[in-house]
């Protein structure tokens, strides 16, 4: 059986009686082609899942950008703090 699958060129002389009912296929070539199709589908699926992985990796970019924004703002607010204090003192009636 193994030799038959590896070489794949000459169909072995088998009769339905020699094979179990489930494995026998009178159109052997069609069967083999089906096997390759399955292999190709698996390859495509493999690429597909690899692409999906790429999308997942790029997803955390957004929170990083937001975090950066907060940092910039915090720095600005820290820098303005003393300025704001002076403004409050200069305009006592309004604050």
């Amino acid at each position, binding site marked *: 059986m193994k030799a038959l699958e590896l070489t794949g060129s000459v169909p072995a002389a088998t009769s339905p009686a020699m094979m179990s009912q489930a494995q026998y296929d009178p159109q052997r070539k069609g069967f083999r082609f089906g096997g390759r199709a399955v292999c190709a589908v698996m390859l495509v699926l493999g690429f597909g899942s690899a692409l999906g992985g790429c999308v997942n990796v790029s997803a955390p970019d957004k929170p990083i950008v937001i975090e950066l924004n907060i940092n910039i703002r915090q720095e600005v*607010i820290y820098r303005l703090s003393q300025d704001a204090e002076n403004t409050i003192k200069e305009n006592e009636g*309004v*604050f």
Partner: protein
Amino acid sequence: MSKIRLNSFVTLCGAVALAFGTGSAALAQEGRDPAYAAARAAGQVGEQKDGYLGVIGNASADVRAMVRDLNNKRRAIYTEKAAGKSTIEEYAFATACRLIAQTQPGEKYQATDGSWKVRGAGAPDRDARCP
């Protein structure tokens, strides 16, 4: 009628200051209009986290008009001071950090979750970005 109410607010303000025994209370309220100081002490007006004043509950039309006027003045100051330094919102936010920190016990301020809180003896609930 409004004068009597105003007087009661001023009395309440004095009572609150006495109750907490804070000498700095008078310092922070030096330049304020008595009506504004009274509304703050009565908890009708509070410091928002965006640098503007907010009206709490069903305050009178006088109080609402006063808050609108003060917020307009604040906006003008923020606009002038922020020029060349930051956005108006950022400047107002930085001022709010200071203003909330300077609230006196008994006065109201807007907490990080947006709710109104009465300033206690401890540190106020301010935004994490405040220095």
